[in-house]
């Protein structure tokens, strides 16, 4: 089943999505890219109803590009997320709404901050340190939460252990990718219908790029 994750770290956002294109019980394809590069510093992972996802993602992609052409500067991640949210919220109360869930990861060149937005098909948007969609979210979110719990209860007992393993907003890219691997491994271990391949993209001050896990 479809799964996507994203997490922020020191100066970057990692966005990962599985690459399966399935229809009913049949896997049609296992190398589909479900992360769109909306600009030089903006990524969008999309999942949901097969037809809707591509249609909506392309609609967003072209409109964000149009804004950049017209104004000669790109939308900032927060503005892009607001616009995308509004598109979904308006679609929700139309005759046939888009059933698309999104993760928007961007690097804001104005205030030099990585930002991540969790958006669902209803048009609910929220800025978060880490996020997930699909069945994988039930496993990944609780795993990433352990860092937050460790923080609220004072210093973690095995500091370095937790620092390497769980989500840390100050983590380096290597540590962030290690955390992502943990999420993927947890999903593979516990979810019956787990995807086996993921595409991983990173956005930081230098722009977007794909990374191999």
């Amino acid at each position, binding site marked *: 089943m479809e799964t996507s994750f994203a997490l922020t770290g020191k100066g970057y956002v990692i966005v990962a999505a599985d690459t399966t294109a399935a229809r009913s019980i049949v896997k049609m394809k296992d190398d589909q890219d479900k992360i769109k590069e909306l600009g030089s510093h903006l990524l969008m992972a999309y999942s949901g109803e097969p037809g809707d996802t591509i249609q909506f993602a392309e609609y967003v992609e072209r409109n964000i590009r149009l804004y950049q052409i017209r104004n000669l500067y790109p939308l900032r991640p927060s503005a892009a997320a607001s616009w995308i949210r509004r598109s979904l919220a308006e679609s929700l*109360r139309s005759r046939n709404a888009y059933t698309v869930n999104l993760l928007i990861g961007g690097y804001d060149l104005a205030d030099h901050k990585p930002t991540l937005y969790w958006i*669902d098909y209803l048009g609910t*948007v*929220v800025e*978060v340190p880490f996020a997930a969609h699909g069945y994988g*979210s*039930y496993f990944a979110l609780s795993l990433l939460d352990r860092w937050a719990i460790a923080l*609220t209860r004072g210093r973690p007992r095995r500091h370095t252990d937790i620092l390497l393993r769980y989500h840390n907003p100050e983590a380096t890219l290597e540590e962030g990718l290690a955390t992502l691997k943990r999420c993927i491994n947890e999903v593979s271990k516990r979810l019956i219908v787990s995807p086996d391949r993921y595409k991983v993209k990173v956005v930081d001050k230098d722009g977007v790029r794909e990374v191999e896990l």
Partner: protein
Amino acid sequence: MVGKDCVAIASDLRLGTQALGISSNFQRVPVSHFSRVCPSLTICQVFPITDRLYVGLPGLGTDVTTLYERFRYRVNMYTIKEEREIHPETFTHMVSSTLYEHRFGPYFIEPVVAGLSKLPTGGLKPFIAAMDLIGCINFAKDFVVAGTASSKLYGVAEGLWEPDLEPEDLFETISQTLLNAVDRDAFSGWGAVVHVITKDRVISRTLKARMD
């Protein structure tokens, strides 16, 4: 909740889809009257409208954002046209009519309004009101509640609230009411925020709450 020359409004900070919690960190700080940061949302979020007027929008996440953006627009237009700040009573009717415009396809939000309204004498009077999702207003003299924990909130508030509380006592009362009610409700909690509006300042505090 109404106090002596003050009112308080409080909200939890959880956003979730059904039983799955998505987010718990919402520290949205208003910048100024006109250029406010657009907030993300929670199951309930409290927003400042003017210096002495706040609105809480518990309900469907997408509608929290949509309605907040709508109210921000309408209040700004009102302020420009009238060249004065909107009164809590007027704002409440604006919220109510906005909701009733969607009578047969409503926004799933039950707003709570709290503020200090100006008297003709120049004094300030505490004002609170709540609405259902199609805009039926409930003006109250003591307290109003809304959201998934509303039945629990009624019980605790009924027991703890008393008339003419000073700001600090009102803060304690509303905080205890909220925290104890959301701890009995599976869909709310994960932190809380409280605003006590007095005649010369607004005391805003975030509360540590159970994270389970």
